[in-house]
């Protein structure tokens, strides 16, 4: 794996004087060729559109004129969009914190079980993650539906008044968070369970002999050993949750009164539905700085982890 870039393949099948052939057989050339499709995908379908988005966001509605940061100014002036910024951040931060806590708790509970039993519980608990989110959100939408709400029916048993899940702005935001947490907590659970399993059993034994109670073991052994995975998963989930579209689109479509819109759904509404492509691009691009900062930390965490492999 670490050989130089100019290693030629066994000499016996290279005809003399065929320097072009020899070049083609060079390992580095072959390797390069093998990555060309990948580079085509990244270059053509990611980098190029990203750059194009930046260009698009500087155009006017009919895409005939360059208006610089005009779109961004208009957006920032709009009360609706400012709310969208707040809603997106509120949604992402709240949902990720809840997912991390619930996922960590569940991973711990699973870890307590004998290994044989873990499998079926793990299987059941991961189901929300497996169902395509657009479709499971349909189910939630049905459960929240004001006239028929099955959830309100259960609440009624405990004499709790019916909740206007999708009608009231705050409840609607909470509904979106609930669905996202329901969908995403199993992912955290799985990642944290894998991390828990990778802590050597002997460290716990040594800590027990040293005098640690279960809480102390959690604090001094488990959490430090899991620190890297915890941060990578949280940061990664921040990116994905921040850019979420499926749940908002199906559950509330941004309503009521645009008060549950997040960047992605608002960009869709402005760009595709209302036909203002450049402004839609501008909305999407608003996500970029925050995502870039988070991505930087994720990358640093991943690199640190691979260096730390003892």
């Amino acid at each position: 794996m670490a050989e130089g870039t100019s290693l030629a393949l066994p000499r016996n099948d290279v005809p003399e004087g065929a320097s072009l052939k020899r070049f083609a057989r060079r390992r580095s050339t072959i390797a390069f060729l093998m990555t060309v499709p990948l580079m085509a995908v990244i270059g053509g379908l990611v980098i190029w559109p990203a750059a194009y988005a930046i260009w698009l966001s500087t155009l006017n509605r009919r895409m005939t004129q360059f208006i610089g940061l005009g779109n961004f100014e208009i957006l920032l002036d709009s009360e609706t969009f400012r709310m969208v910024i707040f809603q997106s951040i509120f949604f992402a931060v709240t949902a990720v914190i809840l997912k991390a806590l619930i996922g960590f708790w569940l991973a711990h509970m699973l870890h307590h079980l004998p290994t044989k039993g873990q499998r079926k519980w793990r299987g059941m608990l991961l189901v929300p993650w497996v169902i395509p989110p657009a479709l499971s959100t349909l189910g939630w939408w049905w459960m929240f539906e004001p006239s028929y709400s099955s959830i309100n029916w259960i609440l009624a048993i405990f004499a709790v008044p019916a909740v206007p899940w999708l009608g009231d702005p705050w409840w609607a935001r909470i509904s979106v968070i609930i669905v996202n947490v329901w969908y995403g907590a199993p992912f955290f659970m799985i990642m944290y369970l894998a991390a828990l399993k990778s802590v050597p059993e002997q460290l716990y034994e040594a800590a027990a002999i040293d005098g640690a109670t279960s809480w102390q073991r959690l604090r001094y052994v488990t959490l430090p050993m899991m620190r890297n995975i915890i941060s990578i998963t949280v940061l990664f989930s921040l990116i994905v949750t921040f850019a979420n579209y499926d749940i908002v689109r199906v559950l509330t479509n941004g309503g009521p009164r645009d008060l549950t819109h997040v960047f992605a759904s608002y960009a869709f509404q402005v760009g595709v539905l209302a036909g203002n492509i450049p402004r839609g691009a501008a909305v999407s691009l608003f996500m970029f700085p925050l995502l870039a900062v988070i991505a930087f930390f994720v990358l640093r965490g991943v690199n640190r982890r691979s260096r730390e492999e003892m």
Partner: protein
Amino acid sequence: MSATTSNRALPGIYHKAGSLRSERRWALWTAYISLIIAAIVMLAPPVYMFMTSIKTSAEIADLSGTPWWVRNPTLDNYRALITNPMFMGFMWNSVKVTVLVVALSMFISVLAAFALARMRFWGSQWLATGVFLTYLVPDTLLFIPLYQIVGGLGLLNSTWGLVLVYPTLTVPFCTWIMIGYFASIPKELDEAALIDGANWTQMLTKIFIPVALPGIIAATIFAFTVSWAAFVYPTAFITTPSEMPLTIGVVSQLIRGDTFAWGQLMAGALLAALPPVIVYVFLMDYYIAGLTAGATKG
């Protein structure tokens, strides 16, 4: 090393010392209670979706009893969907797009991952990092410019447009997983194969792919699941029902006017969700391996 210590299949420390018996019992009880509650919460929505899907419209509209039980189960909703050519069209579109995208993605990923993991060439480190960074770029950032680009190519409103664009969702992570698996194969295998006289193609097909098969399966499952569940791109690109895949088809088309046929809607959603769930049930370990591979082999 010590065979005695490594042969023990140890559960957590909570299961061993008798002196920890009460601590262990308390921990087990908390665990089971938490897990039962969690399982109820996690499974309630799909279960309720299923219950709704086997109710008649009359029963759904009847608010007198509990919504959490089925009194007159019927398969009419499912029958209606299966005989509905538009719905089956959705299914076909999903299948077509997914199969093509998975094949395309795996081809690109395996090739690139092999090159990046085992063959050093100038820029390979950068490219590997770049792949990971690409994975972090969400589809909702790119869908507007891609809308323009795909429109420019005349592929809007066509499943081919989807096939072109879906690899952005799958290729980065699949490549990343495969790099991890390929890199974990010991270097000595290459050298033994070289001495035995294999060229790079033979090494790839006869040695690496078989040895990295678990990783390949995990990556294929990932690509399948992501393609099948994709929602952003179809919503943006496709407006004619005949080209819609299941995700957007079920959400937007099974609603007629103001009255929602909830039974059919739920049935449609469940049918659409079935393939990934089936893959999950039968290949659960590979599925999970794919998820955690990103972090543990990072």
